[in-house]
């Protein structure tokens, strides 16, 4: 199981070794720039800012959760990293997407093709729509390998089989000849992961990868991603609405609301002591946080869509603890008192 990690080390030289990955610090190194750094990323659509001023790091081997409810901007942020946005309807208007010191937003689109798959790969919620229904699984995995590696067709097919085995697909040799519709949702997601990992990306962007799956299969897929990032040193940016998933798998977490990051911290710290009133309310409202049958402390109102976000802090009309500044001015994302690695965008943090 160590082979792919070693392979990447050979190709890249600067990769972390397996042992270094295991010993990696909980937050990014102080001296070295992280693998991925979003700097003030702002995305506009039709004159409205959909995502504003998102700054977020992911170090090699780290699993970072980007969590929020529908319409908070988490998925478009993910797409922007790979420059997969439906431009010009929605496009970056400010900020940078730094991958290993290179701004992906300033690359010509042609160069992005080399980045996708090689450096950054992405998996989505519904693998059926991302897989080609008329090609066999073997064709699709080996295609990804052929695109990025100098191997023969037979060699690519062999590598594809090895990848399918690695992602835990039962009977990988037989799977090469099967079509996506002959597989279950969990198996299809394993195939997608195999394609995404075929060329040893250094960053995997996973957008709700298990939302369509049953809970026991979800656990299998998340365990797989967790094992892979520990083995290979790949960074994972996990986009999800599920706070439980983030708590269980992520090293760090960023909570989005109304197009902005409102809180960012090591996962343990955030769940032990949420500082933003939104994160706090979101955790409190979960059925699992309450005694059975008790009235859930619901959050009143709705998530405002882009273009209808209120001035000041976007959460203030729903907030149970507003102060005067909240409606007037957007709070900065600032380190929390006594916790430099825990930042919060709130005028009246908990």
């Amino acid at each position, binding site marked *: 199981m160590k082979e792919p990690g070693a392979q990447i080390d050979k190709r890249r030289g600067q990769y972390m070794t397996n042992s270094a990955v295991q010993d990696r610090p909980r937050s990014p190194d102080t001296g070295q720039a992280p693998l991925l750094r979003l700097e003030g990323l702002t995305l506009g659509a039709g004159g409205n800012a959909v995502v504003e001023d998102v700054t977020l790091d992911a170090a090699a081997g780290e699993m970072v959760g980007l969590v929020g*409810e*529908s319409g908070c901007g988490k998925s478009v942020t993910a797409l922007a990293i790979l420059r997969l946005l439906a431009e010009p309807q929605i496009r970056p208007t400010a900020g940078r997407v730094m991958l290993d010191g290179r701004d992906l937003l300033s690359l010509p689109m042609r160069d992005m093709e080399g980045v996708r798959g090689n450096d950054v790969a992405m998996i989505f919620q519904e693998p059926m729509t991302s897989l080609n229904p008329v090609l066999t699984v073997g064709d699709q995995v080996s295609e990804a390998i052929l695109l990025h590696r100098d191997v023969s067709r037979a060699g690519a097919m062999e590598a594809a089989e090895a990848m399918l085995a690695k992602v835990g697909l*039962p009977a990988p040799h037989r799977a090469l000849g099967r079509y996506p519709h002959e597989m*279950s949702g*969990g*198996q299809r997601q394993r195939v997608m992961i195999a394609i995404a990992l075929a060329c040893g990306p250094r960053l995997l962007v996973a957008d709700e990868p298990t939302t369509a799956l*049953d*809970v*026991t*299969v*979800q*656990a*299998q897929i*998340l*365990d797989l991603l*967790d094992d892979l990032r520990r083995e290979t040193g790949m960074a994972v940016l996990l986009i999800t*609405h*599920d*706070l*439980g*998933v983030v*708590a*269980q*798998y992520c090293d760090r977490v960023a909570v989005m609301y109304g197009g902005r990051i409102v809180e960012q911290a090591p996962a343990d710290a955030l*769940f032990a002591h949420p500082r933003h009133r939104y994160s706090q*309310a*979101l*955790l409190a*409202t*979960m*059925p*699992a*946080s*309450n005694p*059975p*049958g*008790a*009235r*859930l*402390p*619901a*959050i*009143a109102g*709705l*998530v405002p869509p882009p273009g209808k976000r209120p001035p000041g802090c976007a959460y203030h009309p729903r907030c149970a603890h507003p102060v005067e500044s909240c409606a007037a001015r957007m709070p900065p994302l600032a380190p929390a008192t006594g916790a430099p690695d825990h930042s919060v965008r709130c005028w009246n943090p908990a």
Partner: protein
Amino acid sequence: MSLLSARNLSKVFPGKGGAPIRAVTDVSLDVAPGEVLGLVGESGCGKSTLGRSLLRLIEPTSGEITFDGQDITVLGKAGMKKIRRDMQIVFQDPFGSLNPTHRVGHVIAEPLIVQGVGDKATRRARVAELIDLVGLPEDAAGRYPHEFSGGQRQRIAIARALALDPKLIVADEAVSALDVSIQSQIVNLISDLRARLNLAIVFISHDLSVIRHVSDRIAVMYLGRVVEIGPAERIMENPQHPYTRALLSAIPRIGARREDRVRLNGEVPDPSAPPPGCAFHGRCPQVMEVCRKTLPPLGQPADGEAHHEVACHLHPVAAHG
């Protein structure tokens, strides 16, 4: 006495390739007036088919359903129409189940119109009452479903289901498509309504944390059968079936450790080719030889507690007599 009682209920669908799909097999369960029974399981376990079969929205292949003392499996069209006043359903996707061309007032009044209840004025008054009951804005009746958010649309669907003052509601993944902050609003609404109206609810969900929150009793399904049923706190605190245990430990929870989990390999088998013996044996971490051959009956284990039934060879059912 039970409000709803199913005995040996089965539903077999004709399969595409000839092999019939056994969606629900030999399910017996009861729901008391005002009780919430949670029905939980993974996709393909038959929970939705069971929910619809209980209302005869899907015609069961065999078995008996008694509602309010009456065997409804023998009822004709007119008899069913009458009994439907008392049994309603709420679906997962409120947009798919609300007619987009009708105003909300009409959508909510529809069951009253179909059943010929009241005149226009009394129906309008009832709609206003229902709109207030489910917490929709007062002017909702004159607006269209698309003008509402997902959570509010689910309120509309609930108002419609309550229009005829039913005794039983089947809620099929009614909160599953909603965001966390909206989901809790609807869970609270369902709890309130249940208390105020003495509603019995069959609450179908794949989400155990929601099921635990709303249910008095929980039935766990696997490949068309109930494998464990009992009081909610017993099922959650002291699950007996290895599948229930795995399902519980698979929920990603804040504060839970990955190492403590029961890891399940494989996936739910194909319902058109169920394995012999216990359907779970291929994934069961505690599988024994007998599990591969003999189907364990659902019943109270010899060493078990009252009203807590399990279908597992690890917990043999007490001998009768």
